[in-house]
């Protein structure tokens, strides 16, 4: 709040959907939050012309009439950051949906004020500094065990540097209690567990580093072929029904980030319910604790107000940065950024701005770039390493990737997971096209893989990719002349690539074992298929026909190896290899 200043109160002069205009607003700032009418509907100033402010309202405006009062609040759209946010589900402007439910029942009424966290709840705080210590902005001064897996670090808010003159002892406090007093040049500043931060402004950090550690997702096609680095960006564009949401949810469930922020932006209500229903039951493969304890969900479904949809991605990334600042690896899923872009388009249309491509505002590219640039592997103000990985789903109209949202995203995005309708319609899931997708992190994470996963990673990856590439070429020929016209070695390639596609790339997100495939198992599986190929080539040299290779029993075993329990796979892989060898030998022997 700006002090010593008269509150600005204006009057509505025009309403058309979520955009309203008010006069008498001289002195309000761009992006300042205002409250509209008796119900106090939350809005944000998005245009100023003389004393007339154009306001996007985050709630339904039906029933609002000209002449209604508009009160400026003096601050930009900000959210509360404090212990208690994890495991919750929020709307686009960080109001907890559970509290809204208590206040307004099963349907969302408007004008509800609900703080993001429970202000009366007491948290066990353990200080990390003592009186007289010099502290700087972003420094961690204590800990709160927020959930059984996440230790919520309490930080000095940005902008405060000085000496601790008072620090709370170990004990329980609410988020509003003063836990420290810091003597700064400007005087004594009080520090609480609760921080507020304006969502449209990136939180400060020391510097960005190049991402070099992969985000392990347990998804074979991603980890082995198109990895995204921690702190990197990825985009998954795909028409409806190609499995964007399933892919996003698999990532939210299984990726090895510390914190997951899941933004359901303009998507289906039932999908959010699905997340709420399944996450508490899922166990984190690392800690064995419920997944929900490291997850925060922002749900602004397609029938909730469009302006709040526009804000929801900023809300999400602000929370992500806050946990990054504590030194965590955060992964943020935005499903779907197209709905966000459409919300911008809708608001822009109501403002009668000159439209750019396909009716989207001219600033679409800038906004997308600004959003994705808030990702990164950083050195925090506290000299820790933290990261925000952003994975954005895109819903291109008609599945056509040439549209503006996809194209502008690709320009600022380094991983591209192209979802493919034709794969989806034959139930090849995840329907990620291996020929069109790419990852520009392959070189930067290579070292990590060679050291931590397998020294053969790069070699296997290249070999498998070139086989798949070859298959694509061969398929064109087969379309013209039929498979019989191919030489035996090429028919073998088709046999092996079928195995690669069906037995390796396909992964069942609903299967109890297959849903999550550890990196070691991924590489062991790939090794089996590739060694099958090498061994088969050798067998063919020894006179074995491609038809008898195609009919081998071991292929059925390989087809089902993905379902074999992860913990005993290493042993099982050896078994498969020895069975394979003996079957090949007997084929050769019978020649």
């Amino acid at each position, binding site marked *: 709040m700006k002090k010593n200043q008269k509150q600005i109160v204006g009057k509505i*002069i*025009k*309403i*058309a*959907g979520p955009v309203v205009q008010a006069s008498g607003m001289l002195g309000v700032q761009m992006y300042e939050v205002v409250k509209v009418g008796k119900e106090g509907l939350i809005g944000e100033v998005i245009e100023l012309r003389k004393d007339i402010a154009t306001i996007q309202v985050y709630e*339904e405006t*039906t*029933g*609002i*009439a*000209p*002449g209604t009062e508009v009160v400026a609040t003096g601050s930009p759209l900000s959210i509360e950051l404090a212990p208690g946010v994890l495991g919750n*589900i929020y709307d686009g402007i960080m109001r907890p949906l559970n509290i*809204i*439910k208590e206040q307004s029942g*099963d*349907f*969302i*009424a408007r004008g509800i004020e609900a703080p993001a966290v429970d202000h009366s709840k007491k948290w066990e705080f353990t200080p990390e500094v003592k009186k007289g210590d010099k502290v700087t902005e972003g420094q961690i001064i204590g800990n709160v065990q927020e959930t059984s897996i996440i230790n919520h670090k309490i930080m000095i808010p940005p902008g405060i540097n000085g000496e601790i003159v008072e620090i709370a002892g170990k004990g329980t406090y609410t988020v509003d209690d003063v836990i420290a007093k810091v003597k700064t040049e400007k005087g004594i500043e009080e520090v609480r567990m609760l921080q507020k931060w304006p969502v449209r402004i990136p939180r400060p950090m020391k510097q960005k580093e190049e991402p070099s550690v992969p985000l392990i997702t347990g998804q074979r096609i991603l980890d082995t072929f198109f990895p995204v680095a921690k702190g990197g960006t990825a985009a998954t564009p795909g028409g*409806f*029904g190609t499995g964007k949401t399933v892919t996003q949810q698999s990532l939210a469930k299984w990726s090895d980030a510390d914190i997951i922020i899941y933004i*359901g932006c*303009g998507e*289906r*209500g*039932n999908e*959010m*319910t*699905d997340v*709420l*229903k399944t996450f508490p039951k899922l166990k984190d493969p690392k800690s064995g604790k419920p997944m929900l304890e490291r997850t925060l969900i922002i749900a602004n*479904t*397609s*029938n*909730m107000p*469009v302006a709040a949809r526009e804000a929801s991605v900023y809300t999400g990334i602000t929370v992500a940065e806050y946990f990054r600042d504590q030194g965590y690896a955060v992964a943020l899923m935005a499903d779907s950024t197209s709905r966000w872009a*459409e919300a911008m*388009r*809708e608001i822009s*249309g109501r403002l*009668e701005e000159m*439209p750019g491509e396909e*009716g989207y505002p001219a600033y679409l590219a800038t906004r997308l770039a600004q959003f994705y640039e808030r990702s990164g592997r950083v050195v925090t103000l506290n000299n820790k390493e933290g990261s925000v990985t952003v994975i954005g789903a895109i*819903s291109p*109209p*008609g599945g056509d990737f040439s549209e503006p949202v996809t194209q502008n995203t690709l320009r600022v995005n380094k991983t591209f997971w192209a979802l493919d309708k034709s794969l989806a*319609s*034959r*139930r*090849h899931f995840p329907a990620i096209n291996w020929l069109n997708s790419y990852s520009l992190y392959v070189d930067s994470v290579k070292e990590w893989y060679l050291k931590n996963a397998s020294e053969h990673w790069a070699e296997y990856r290249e070999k498998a990719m070139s086989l798949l590439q070859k298959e694509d070429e061969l398929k064109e020929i*087969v*379309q*013209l002349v*039929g*498979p019989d016209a191919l030489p035996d070695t090429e028919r073998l390639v088709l046999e092996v690539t079928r195995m690669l596609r069906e037995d390796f790339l396909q992964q069942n997100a*609903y299967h109890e074992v297959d849903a999550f495939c550890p990196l070691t198992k991924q590489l062991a599986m790939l090794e089996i298929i590739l060694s099958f190929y090498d061994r088969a080539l050798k067998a063919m040299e020894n006179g074995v026909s491609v038809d008898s290779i195609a009919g081998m029993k071991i*292929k*059925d075993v390989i*087809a*089902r190896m993905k379902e074999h329990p992860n913990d005993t796979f290493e042993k099982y892989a050896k078994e498969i290899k020895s069975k394979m060898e003996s079957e090949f030998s007997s084929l050769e022997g019978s020649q």
Partner: protein
Amino acid sequence: MSKVVEYNSIREIAGPLMIVEGVRGIAYGELVNIELSSGEKRTGQVLEAREDLAVVQVFEGTRGMDSKGTRVRFTGETMKLGVSKEMIGRLFNGIGKPIDGKPPIVPDKKIDINGQPINPASREFPEEFIQTGVSAIDMMNTLVRGQKLPIFSEAGLPHNLLAAQIARQAKVRGKGESFAVVFGAMGITFEEAKFFMNDFERTGTIEKMVGFINLADDPAIERIITPRMALSTAEYLAFEHGMHVLVILTDMTNYCEALREISAARNEIPGRRGYPGYMYTDLANLYERAGKIKGKKGSVTQIPILTMPQGDISHPIPDLTGYITEGQIVVSKDLHRNGIYPPIDVLPSLSRLMNEGIGEGKTREDHSGVANQLYSAYAEGRDLRDLVAVVGEEALSDRDKKFLKFADLFEKRFVQQAPDENRDIIEGSFRIGWELLSTLPKNELKKVKQEHIEKYYVKQ
């Protein structure tokens, strides 16, 4: 709410819109009563409210209105629908007036037709299997209670026959619960409406049905209201009376055309193909009104029908719909030409909520595996058809020939059924499904669990 004042200061009438000036304190979204010089009464809604003027869309159209003698009354209320359980068995026009010759209903309460979004935290995840008796849906694209599953069709295809069959046969296995159908027709022809009515009457469905009918020659703007009336009624029956409501909305394409008409009349910046940029949000406000709520007995399940212009699934109407709904049932011209009824093409069809509604205790333990296997075998067979067209069947391997045969059998025996054939999921769909899968070698059934193959594979 302001008191009701009457104005006759109409500045402009254009298309479905009317601009009234010199007004005071008119709220956005307010309901407007209009009386023409002839004494005829119409209704409208405020689309834009300014200090001294209001833009009003007139639902019955502006034909016959003049800017001198027309009187406009702003009611100070938003558009509401009087609802009651007595609506069951009744027919209304597109804006909720009875058209079956019976007296108006006595409303139990009045509800805002725009509804309010269901809090995602209050939703219960849909997972109750609905048996429609249609194999291509039950087995391949399972419908569950609280789902929104549209039918994507084209002009000239039997989507109405299919919708009527679903409305007639849909049930939850082994349960006799109170059940209702809400039928919302937007801009369909008299004959189409007649077809539904005859079918509902013949089969007795009419006794548990509420109909809102806007015919092709009724005012186009009314169509904006019709689905909202239907859905408000459905929500009322579901969440206040604990009924399981199936809502059929046809034809959504006409609804979207009406939306475009209003947008054009307001000189809005058009999005794709002239449809307004907010069409996604607008459609979502309808489709998202399906679902179940924790602690409440009833449910709203939606089957919207839309005809894809020129069969183009990437046209904005099916495209935006597909992004909102939980899957789609695609009806195909090719299958129809080959005499297959229902001509459901299972490959582009999808039910997103299927996984939760099937399996042990719901349908049968092998459902997911069997469905996936049928899909991929059929997809492979279809690919081979293209190949055969070029190289001839002789060039195929024995394995491939089996898949080619499978695709034919799948269409003729599994998808094909009579319009009055109500197939039980276990006795019908599963039995036929396994018979077909058993024409393939066991080792090709990679998507089915080994134990299920042992149990259900039919020896030839």
